[in-house]
């Protein structure tokens, strides 16, 4: 039986290797470290200062965004 868990990131299902992952770990996993991003988890903002503290749960719904050109 497989370990890890599935979450929804930016509308796409993502299988995580472990069941114990923080937002920080996810960001590293996604190679977004150092990028200027913001994260919403299940409708609430996750402050960057809390990335290391917030544990992801199965079926979490995350939005990870950045700034792009727009008018």
């Amino acid at each position, binding site marked *: 039986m497989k370990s890890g868990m599935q979450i929804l990131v930016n509308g796409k299902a993502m299988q995580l290797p472990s069941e114990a992952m923080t937002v920080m770990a996810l960001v590293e996993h996604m190679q977004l470290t150092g990028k200027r991003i913001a994260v919403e988890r299940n409708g609430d903002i996750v402050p960057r200062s809390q990335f290391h503290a917030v544990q992801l749960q199965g079926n979490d719904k995350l939005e*990870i965004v950045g700034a792009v050109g727009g008018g």
Partner: protein
Amino acid sequence: MSDALVIAGKSYESRLLVGTGKYKDFAETRAAIDASGTEIVTVAIRRTNIGQNANEPSLLDYLPPAEFTYLPNTAGCYSADDAIRTLRLARELLDDHRLVKLEVLGDPNTLYPNVTETIAAAKVLVKEGFEVMVYTSDDPIIARQLEEIGCVAVMPLASLIGSGMGILNPWNLQIIIESAKIPVLVDAGVGCASDAAIAMELGCAGVLMNTAIAAARDPVLMAGAMKKAVEAGRESFLAGRMAKKLYSASPSSPTTGMIG
């Protein structure tokens, strides 16, 4: 003569706000922004591309937040809820940045604002401490309601987003400007330099544009034209134009002393 634009207590020399979308590349974006002399640039908030190359340059590399005042917008949002969530993300993204552009659209074909959803979003955002510059229609009553809610600037459209049709109803803008106590900026619809000058001559505090510059044959040259047009229109407004009179045209040369 100091004639600063003051928004939410902060002063700006330039009265031209420029969007950062639709340019050929970031280099052209930066060149146009520089030519425009703008101090406030709008940006959109979008999902990061999962698995994108982590090293590819981003808009922020070309327009460092240290050099410009960012104005994150809610372009593409069709509900108050989406707009609110988008701006909460923007605020976090830009280190508790509070100055934002709220726009809630009503229709993907016209991109005309949905003023009822806009009002609903504005109420929540103002309560949460955002400094809301709000894109709206040229409805003077809605503009007044948005001011009463506590928005820091109302930004009625001149014409549809991306249309370049210019100022379709200067009379409504005039009514809004004469009654508003907060800055009124024309947002959307400006297509050429004279459109921007007309907006400023009506008494607008500023003009926000993107397509007029980005979709010009030569965006950088047009950006410079817009800078001059906004300044020209502002000075023309402040200088107090001559009265219009269809009749009894008056000569600029003396009517006496003619040879006979």
